[in-house]
């Protein structure tokens, strides 16, 4: 076997990464052995089917990926901080901006959102778990091992280097001969299957598992946003599945889909990628809208203004999101008619989005606002996201786009959309729901510290990019000469990136500090909130609710508190729970090896792994596990203990 293709040469940086990965792995193994935690890890986490634990694992993975993607970002900003920098060479710069995009969107924003929805949705609708707890574990492990497959590319074989959108012909075997884009097609495919399963799971959960009395139009706004997001996931991800499969066929088996000769059509890739890619933007942004809606209502002490228009604007966005994809390639060669059509549909999306912005503003109006950390992120989101949206409308004009296309103006635009529209939201949601999961709040003083660092640095980092774009700096250029005059603004942007890093370090330090020193909350409702997830104890018991709540109004908990409507009327009885299973984890591992062998065209091991996948699935079909019951006595004891009463 040719070992040469596994190696990545050159840079001290790569060797550094290899050594740190090796050290971290050894550290984890030694740590688990010394503290005798292997059994605990397997029983409580790797085999869990509990939606809360799966959610926590998603969020942990997302935080990890946030730092991986963040380091990529700092390397890029450092390389372009001054003219003619020699920190990275062109190839490594290509790899770094490619993995930055992939990781931040698919392995940071998506899992963070899916993690929050895993933790919160069943609670918010008053359910004991998701509809298919085992499939939920399958989803997580497929996502996780897909993410790992992409991450090892940095040290084994080389990372993808054709941009996160991997346009052909650049991504073809002819122009990207390393295995990097094989990793791209397989890692995304594996985690994409996991995401599709999540989509199905949550649609069924939300439509079929709601507490009695919770009609569709009484669902909390976050639940609505997640429902619509999952509908988009289910119908958009199959397009990516096909596109990635065709890419794999082109690269591994010599088919002629996206080639330049023999009837292939390179532009078809860009087309398919964005048929999925644009709805994907809404997949990460819509749940954010839901999170903000919850936070604004809670901290204004008012019900959400224009609930119905909020729901309908999201439904319209979900349909429109499938009608705008060509605005990503106005300059590709299609006619005026096509560009006009997609220009109009794109601008039309600004309307329902604008409706939402006004709804939030009207909710704030005359509210009794408390400026907590999650609320600060929400308040910062509104103006920053509006800048992102307005520059989006500028880009939507096809004729004007010929000027901005592929410049730093575009880069600034989508960071102004995605960071407030996804990252601030998940951080706000993280602070907001943290006490629900762990039973104590994150420290407010440290939280606000981090907030100011992040908000100010964000603008320092990305606002100069608008100007650089208008000056003519194109995206993805790894260096530039002094005469261009791009230097000073890039240096400013680099300074901003460092500030962002400090902000995120404070955020993580806050988790450590709060774990040790923050007072514990025994009320289960530290923010005086409105929706059902705050009606149970924190931390949440395994069965979520001792008794299934009965819902009569929209903000069920709020009206229960205000008008004394009892939520829990029934007696505590025994509770049925699904048992843990190791098969989803094993399935993930087998998929990982299947992907890895295909990346390196090792056919026989790949076939063996493929058969392994079918066998694990067959074994899951034969499973005859019917779960177990928690006796009523045990439920009552747990409830008392969580409320701080002595048993």
């Amino acid at each position, binding site marked *: 076997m040719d070992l040469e293709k596994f190696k990545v040469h050159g840079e001290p940086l790569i060797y550094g990464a290899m050594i740190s990965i090796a050290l971290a792995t050894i550290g984890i193994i030694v740590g688990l052995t010394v503290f005798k935690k292997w059994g605990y890890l397997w029983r409580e986490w790797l085999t869990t089917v509990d939606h809360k634990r799966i959610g926590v694992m998603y969020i942990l993975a997302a935080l990890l990926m946030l730092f991986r993607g963040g380091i990529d970002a700092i390397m890029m900003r450092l390389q372009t901080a001054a003219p003619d920098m020699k920190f990275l060479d062109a190839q490594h710069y290509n790899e770094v901006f490619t993995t930055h995009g992939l990781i931040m969107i698919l392995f940071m924003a998506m899992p963070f959102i899916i993690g929050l929805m895993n933790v919160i949705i069943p609670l918010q609708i008053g359910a004991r778990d998701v509809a298919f707890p085992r499939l939920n574990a399958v989803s997580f492990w497929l996502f996780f091992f897909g993410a790992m497959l992409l991450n090892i590319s940095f040290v084994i074989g080389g990372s993808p280097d054709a941009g996160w959108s991997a346009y052909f012909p650049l991504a073809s075997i002819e122009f990207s001969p390393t295995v990097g884009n094989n990793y791209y097609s397989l890692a995304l495919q594996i985690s994409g299957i996991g995401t599709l399963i999540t989509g199905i799971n949550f649609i069924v959960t939300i*439509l079929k598992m709601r507490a009695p009395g919770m009609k569709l139009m009484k669902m909390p706004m976050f639940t609505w946003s997640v429902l619509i997001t999952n*509908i988009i996931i289910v*119908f*958009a991800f199959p*397009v990516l599945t096909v596109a990635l499969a065709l890419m794999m066929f082109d690269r591994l088996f010599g088919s002629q889909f996206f080639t330049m000769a023999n009837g292939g*059509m390179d*532009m*078809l890739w860009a*087309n*398919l990628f964005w*048929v999925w890619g644009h709805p994907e933007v809404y997949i990460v942004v819509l749940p954010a809208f839901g999170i903000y809606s919850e936070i604004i209502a809670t901290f204004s002490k008012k019900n959400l203004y224009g609930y119905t228009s909020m729901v309908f604007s999201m439904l319209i966005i979900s*349909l429109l999101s*499938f*009608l705008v*994809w*060509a605005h990503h390639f106005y300059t590709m*060669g*299609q*006619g*005026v*008619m*096509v560009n006009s*059509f997609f220009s109009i549909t794109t601008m039309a999306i600004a309307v329902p989005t604008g409706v939402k912005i006004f709804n939030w503003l009207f909710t704030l109006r005359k509210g009794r606002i408390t400026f907590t950390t999650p609320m600060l992120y929400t308040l910062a989101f509104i103006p920053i996201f509006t800048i992102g949206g307005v520059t989006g409308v500028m880009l939507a004009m096809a004729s004007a786009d010929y000027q901005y296309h592929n410049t730093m103006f575009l880069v600034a635009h989508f960071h102004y959309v995605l960071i407030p529209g996804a990252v601030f939201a998940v951080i706000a949601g993280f602070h907001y729901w943290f006490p629900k999961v762990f039973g104590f709040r994150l420290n407010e003083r440290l939280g606000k510290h981090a907030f100011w660092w992040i908000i100010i640095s964000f603008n320092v980092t990305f606002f100069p990019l608008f100007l650089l774009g208008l000056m003519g700096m194109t995206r993805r250029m790894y260096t530039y000469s002094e005469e261009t005059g791009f230097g000073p603004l890039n240096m400013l942007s680099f300074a901003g990136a460092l500030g962002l890093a400090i902000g995120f370090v404070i955020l993580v330090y806050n988790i450590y500090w709060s774990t040790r020193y923050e007072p514990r909350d025994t009320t289960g409702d530290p923010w005086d909130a409105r929706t059902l997830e705050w009606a149970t104890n924190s931390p949440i018991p395994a069965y979520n609710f001792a008794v299934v709540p009965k819902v009569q109004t929209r903000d069920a908990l709020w009206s229960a508190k205000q008008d004394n409507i009892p939520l829990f009327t029934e007696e505590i009885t025994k509770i049925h729970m699904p048992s843990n299973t190791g098969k989803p984890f094993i399935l993930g591992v087998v998929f990982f090896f299947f992907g890895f062998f295909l990346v390196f065209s090792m056919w026989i091991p790949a076939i063996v792994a493929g058969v392994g996948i079918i066998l694990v699935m067959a074994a899951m079909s034969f499973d005859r596990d019917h779960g177990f019951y928690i006796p009523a006595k045990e439920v009552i004891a747990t409830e008392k203990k969580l409320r701080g009463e002595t048993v």
Partner: protein
Amino acid sequence: MMKQLFPIRHVMGYIASLVLSAAALAVIYLDLSKTVDIIILTVTAIIQASLQLFVFMHIGESADTKKELYINIAYALFVGLVTIFGTLFIFLWGWYA
């Protein structure tokens, strides 16, 4: 026994699907204009797909999910058709000439 094993609805559906497939063959054996051909193919295919959906798959049989299932299929068809015709619009009908 035979009546219970071979319900009339299924048998009729099966015969109809065979007849429709045979009818679609007209496009290769009869000399029709291209537009007529495409119309025949589209109509027979849609009727056949509906037969499967309504007669064999019982899409409407469960009252508590009926509405959701129709919306599900409608949304899927929306995305599918937008992908097909949008792409053809970009690359064939609307390509810069």
